[in-house]
């Protein structure tokens, strides 16, 4: 395990964090008991410590440089520490009333308190924390950081001895407060921290808010604990931590601008226009011929450049699909060892053999055989503007990952009886719901298909209901009984001409019900950790999956496909 740290130090580009993110995401959600996303912070070199928000833990790559243990162990402790704050801390307390040094001491005591509380529920995490405390400073070092590091260790490690009066006082007050007031009494611990901060003031210990970094590399920057005023005066006084947030926003890379978009593409080819009704949930009525769905082929001129984009091909390994098997009454297997009915011909032969004193053939049953394949699955991709956002962890847009996943799926089905089509949609008000036909049923994956898939742009909004109705009409024209619609999206339905957030969700729900009534199974894969609130409503409690990270999409898409194909 030591190796992954050394690999990181030798090669700063080694993607240590990326490899750890899937298991850290599951660890955080499991310990927290509900979804909690772990991602890498893009805060640049100044983000020395992890940043916690109510929904996210943003890991700092720089923390790794201060750590002595492997990355996997460090970030595991970081995640547990974040869960401790989210479970037990009062978040976003007003910071104005405290001096920066008091804030730092209160935060450190709060760290120790919530870690102990978490260790009551998960006793093993104490060792995780202990392993990553800052090393004991030299004996003569009485700087603020050194004293804090010694206090952290004195409280966390019962076997540690220190000769400093203040450190021992901190340990004694902490233990007494725990004993008399209990760990749940946060104000009592805050009072302890105030006493300790006051002592430091008396000791003339110097505190530099601009350069203060929390000593333990697994701990966060404490910005989750404090609510800072936004006026300039306070900002000057505040410690380094809260600045991480705006810095993080500034550091997020701009939306992907493909070289292809710089070349003026040819016009898109319009195939047809269809009017669809839309459901108004408040009035309880259908708005007839309300949405115009425009079927298109994407402009191909842009494709040539995009086609050279290596991301489109080899990032994910190919998927292999299990063959789906179904029982079929049309194929009756005769002369079986066991089965539902007696095979009359075989039975007659048995009786004849008996009369002739021959050994009868025991295989005299019939049973139904199996039928394979012939599913028709339409993969419907969300091509709204938000899919252009780069994945924090991978530096690739969701759009690219969506396309790759769909492409790999189509490639995998070429060798089966199943048939896949890939369509995409976005919307710019009800007057223009663009519906792109990217790959037709069973079409070979030649260059023109690749180009079409590669060149389709992502823009505008997500009017899901209209697109679902269009996709349903395509599926109904397909033969066979096993037809499914697999939707990949990254956010709740929305459009610029709709202001009621429930309106498009309810309309999409009606569209799903219409598809189900027409014998088409639906399934939605949402690449959005907060998708619970709408996908469940639209697609039902079972027919959806949530991918916390876009990198899970190809595997989840494959699973969803198998599920739909099984009927």
């Amino acid at each position, binding site marked *: 395990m030591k190796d992954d740290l050394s690999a990181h130090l030798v090669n700063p580009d080694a993607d240590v964090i990326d490899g750890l993110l899937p298991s850290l995401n*599951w660890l955080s*959600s499991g310990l927290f008991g509900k979804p909690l996303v772990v991602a890498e912070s893009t805060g640049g070199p100044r983000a020395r410590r992890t940043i916690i928000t109510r929904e996210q833990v943003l890991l700092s790559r720089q923390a790794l440089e201060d750590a002595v243990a492997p990355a996997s162990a460090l970030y595991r402790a970081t995640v547990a520490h974040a869960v401790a704050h989210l479970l037990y801390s009062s978040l976003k307390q007003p910071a104005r009333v405290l001096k920066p040094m008091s804030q730092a001491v209160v935060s450190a005591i709060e760290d120790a308190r919530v870690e102990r509380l978490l260790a009551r529920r998960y006793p*093993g995490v104490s060792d995780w924390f202990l392993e990553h405390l800052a090393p004991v400073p030299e004996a003569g070092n009485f700087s603020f950081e050194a004293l804090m590091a010694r206090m952290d260790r004195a409280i966390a490690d019962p076997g540690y001895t220190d000769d400093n009066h203040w450190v021992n006082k901190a340990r004694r007050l902490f233990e007494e407060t725990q004993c008399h007031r209990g760990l749940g009494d946060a104000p009592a611990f805050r009072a302890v921290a105030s006493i300790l901060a006051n002592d430091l003031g008396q000791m003339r210990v110097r505190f530099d808010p601009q350069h203060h970094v929390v000593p333990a590399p697994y701990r966060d920057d404490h910005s989750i604990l404090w609510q800072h005023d936004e006026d300039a005066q306070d900002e000057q006084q505040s410690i380094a931590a809260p600045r991480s947030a705006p810095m993080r926003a500034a550091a997020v890379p701009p939306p992907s601008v493909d070289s292809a978009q710089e070349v003026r593409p040819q016009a898109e080819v319009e195939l047809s226009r269809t009017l669809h009704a839309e459901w108004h949930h408040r009035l309880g009525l259908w708005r007839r011929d309300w949405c115009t769905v425009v079927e298109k082929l994407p402009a191909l001129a842009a494709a040539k450049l995009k086609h050279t984009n290596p991301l489109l091909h080899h990032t994910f390994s190919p998927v292999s699909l299990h063959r789906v098997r179904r029982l079929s009454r049309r194929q009756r297997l005769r002369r079986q060892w066991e*089965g539902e009915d*007696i095979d009359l011909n075989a039975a007659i032969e048995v009786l004849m053999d008996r009369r002739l004193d021959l050994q009868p053939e025991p295989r005299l049953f019939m049973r*139904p055989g199996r039928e394979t394949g012939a599913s028709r699955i339409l993969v419907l991709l969300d091509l709204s503007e938000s899919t252009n956002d780069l994945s924090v962890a991978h530096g690739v847009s969701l759009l690219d990952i969506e396309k790759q996943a769909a492409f790999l799926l189509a490639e995998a089905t070429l060798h089966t009886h199943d048939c896949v089509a890939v369509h995409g949609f976005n919307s710019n008000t009800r007057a223009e719901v663009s519906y792109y036909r990217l790959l037709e049923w069973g079409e070979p994956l030649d260059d023109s298909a690749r180009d079409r898939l590669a060149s389709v742009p992502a823009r505008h909004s997500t009017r899901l209901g209209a697109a679902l109705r269009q996709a349903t009409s395509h599926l109904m024209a397909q033969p066979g009984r096993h037809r499914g619609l697999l939707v990949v999206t990254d956010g709740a339905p929305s459009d610029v001409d709709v202001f009621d957030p429930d309106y498009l969700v309810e309309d999409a729900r009606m569209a799903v019900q219409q598809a189900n009534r027409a014998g088409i199974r639906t399934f939605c894969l949402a690449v959005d950790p907060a998708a619970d609130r709408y996908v469940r409503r639209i697609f039902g409690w079972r027919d959806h999956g949530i991918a916390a990270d876009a990198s899970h999409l190809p595997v989840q898409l494959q699973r969803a496909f*198998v599920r739909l194909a099984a009927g």
Partner: protein
Amino acid sequence: MQSPLHDHLIQSEPFYQPSGQEVECYERAYRHRMPLMLKGPTGCGKTRFVEYMAWKLQRPLVTLACNEDMTASDLVGRYLLDAQGTAWHDGPLTLAVRYGGICYLDEVVEARQDTTVVIHPLTDARRILPLDKKGEVIHAHPDFQLVVSYNPGYQSSAKDMKASTRQRFAALEFDYPDTDTEVAIVAQEAGIDAVLARQLVTVAQCTRALKQRGLDEGASTRVLVYAGILVRDGLTPAQSCEMTLVRALTDDPDMAKAIRDFVQAQFG
């Protein structure tokens, strides 16, 4: 003469820890011989509950695990060849109907829909089982009751139960018990102390938070009992959980690491 269902009588009391009013609800349903559907995730105690009720009511219990290859003949019976020609052999459902047992169809949605329709005439006011191949109509014994179970969250190719089948049953919903009850169950079943049982339950609760986010199902009470038994037998908690939780729940190395971390967060 001994009843053909004598072997299906449950002789000793199975351990069952109620987590609500389900025992009373079942008894009232049985008073009217009402067909029952037990819903709930895997390993939460559905089958144990039926065994317990069969023991309590002193009725023989005929259990059948359904699968997609199961046919109507597997339920009701079939003709087989013998020395004299063909002879009818009752299936397990027919036995329970004739002699008054509780017939328990486990994971009923796994059976094909054309198989499950044979229970329709048994589960309405008629309470009959027509054996069309034999030309016989069996009127159900007064003590006969049909119980089915299924796991609504099962994420495979499982189909939903048809409405016409579903509405023939009264339903009892099962879930993993609350923490204290589950701790008591694991401690009792595995023969371990409550502290260890509580730690195992906490690990399971972490995995259950990942349902539909990487796991189809979290760790069940049953696997916790397995984990406890192995610890009692001398394995360390980490070894036992590796066998019964980590390896059993997932093949994905990243997910396995996350579950291993839950175990370590608990046992160090």
